[in-house]
């Protein structure tokens, strides 16, 4: 089956089509998000925290159209982020743990949308809109944008821990336990980003080697892994209750080359 007809079947006639819709939307949303931040607006990797007011004016001038168009895309499509959260909340509900875990995750991550991406969109659009604004105020918008985006910590910290606890307590084997522990690694990135509220330069500033590069590497792996695992959950899901079946046999998983070497 080609990818397109596969997709069509998944979204139209598959009994799990709602789940497939949220999964494909998750992939689409994260791709769009990366393109907007890394390519169109060039706000990731982030600007330097130590720019003086005049330099921030130049920074805005440099990205004028990209900021307005890119964040326009987020203004229109940012709500798709709810699909990933809804799917994860569903995966938690499918576990043997209380629904309180699923609802906590849902609410925590949905609250996160406002400081997590709406504020940077508003601040950067306001900065790009009036290049002739007082430079001090341009820098204030610049700070608001980057700090709100990087420094929105608590919801992701507690949200990851809730997901971790649910996975480790689950008896339905929805996720492998190692992914539970990976949630802890992701939660810790929110601790590592905290010093970006304190330092204007160095490895722990919002563009720092530790606070940005290493954190983004961990977060990127985490995101890639959970998108893959969510697909696995949908394939295995019997839409019932109790333990999730294993993947149907006959499709043996290929061994990773590294695992072969070690064997």
């Amino acid at each position, binding site marked *: 089956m080609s990818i397109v007809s596969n997709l069509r079947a998944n979204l139209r006639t598959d009994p799990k089509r709602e789940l497939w819709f949220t999964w494909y939307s998750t992939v689409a949303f994260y791709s769009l998000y990366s393109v907007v931040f890394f390519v169109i607006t060039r706000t990731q990797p982030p600007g330097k925290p130590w720019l003086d007011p005049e330099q921030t004016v130049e920074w805005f001038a440099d990205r004028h159209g990209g900021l307005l168009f890119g964040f326009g895309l987020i203004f229109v499509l940012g709500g798709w982020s709810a699909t990933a959260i809804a799917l994860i909340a569903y995966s938690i509900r499918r576990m043997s743990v209380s629904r309180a875990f699923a609802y906590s995750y849902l609410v925590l991550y949905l609250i996160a949308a406002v400081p997590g991406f709406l504020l940077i969109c508003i601040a950067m659009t306001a900065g790009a809109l009036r290049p002739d604004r007082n430079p001090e105020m341009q820098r204030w918008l610049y700070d608001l944008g980057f700090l709100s985006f990087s420094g929105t910590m608590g919801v992701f910290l507690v949200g990851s821990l809730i997901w971790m606890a649910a996975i480790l307590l689950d008896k339905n084997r929805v996720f492998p336990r190692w992914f539970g522990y990976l949630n802890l*690694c992701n939660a810790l990135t929110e601790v590592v980003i905290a010093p970006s509220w304190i330092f204007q330069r160095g490895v722990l500033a919002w563009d720092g080697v530790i606070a940005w590069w290493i954190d983004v590497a961990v977060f990127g792996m985490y995101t890639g892994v959970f998108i893959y695992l969510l697909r696995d959950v949908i394939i295995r899901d019997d839409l019932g209750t109790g333990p999730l079946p294993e993947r149907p046999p006959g499709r043996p998983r290929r061994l990773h080359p590294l695992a072969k070497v070690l064997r």
Partner: protein
Amino acid sequence: MAAPDTSTADLPDEEIERVPGEGDMWFFVLFESLVFTAYFCVYLYFRTQDERAFLEAQSALNLPLGIVDTIVLLTSSWAIARCVQEARAGRYPAARRLALATIGLGAAFFALKLVEWVNLIRGGHTFTSSDFMQHFFFLTGMHAIHLLIGFVALGILVHQLSDPQRRSQETIETCSTYWHTVDLYWVLIFAVLYIVR
């Protein structure tokens, strides 16, 4: 090692090959070790860029206190390894005593860490006072967070040992693996922060 699984039944307990604890915890150990390694690399690189300033700030550290601290944590690691041995032999009360000793030694380590931090801060060496201190407080702070999470693991362990209905050797070994990891990170942090010049 090529021997099939069935033959291991005849071997003495010591010779059986088995993963200590659940394999998933080993994934965490490996992954988080790489993250810490990345932090160390950043620190070592930036240290070489301004060795004078790093050495000066580093001289404020109290090495004997750090060594005592290290020995306390190594001893806690030994105690939990003994605890696993006792649990494996079915001597649960002894295992429980050793687990409580581990918690005590972990708490002692944390108390010494607090003393060290307070002394440094009183001496004007804070998170923001120099590049070295920034790395110092960051790395020791991250380690302390892992240590505090370790108390949760030890709590689960004691809980398991206390109740005959719950005892699962795998869970006991998983918790102990986590605790050893806390020790491992400290061994590396101690070397790069206190000894490296």
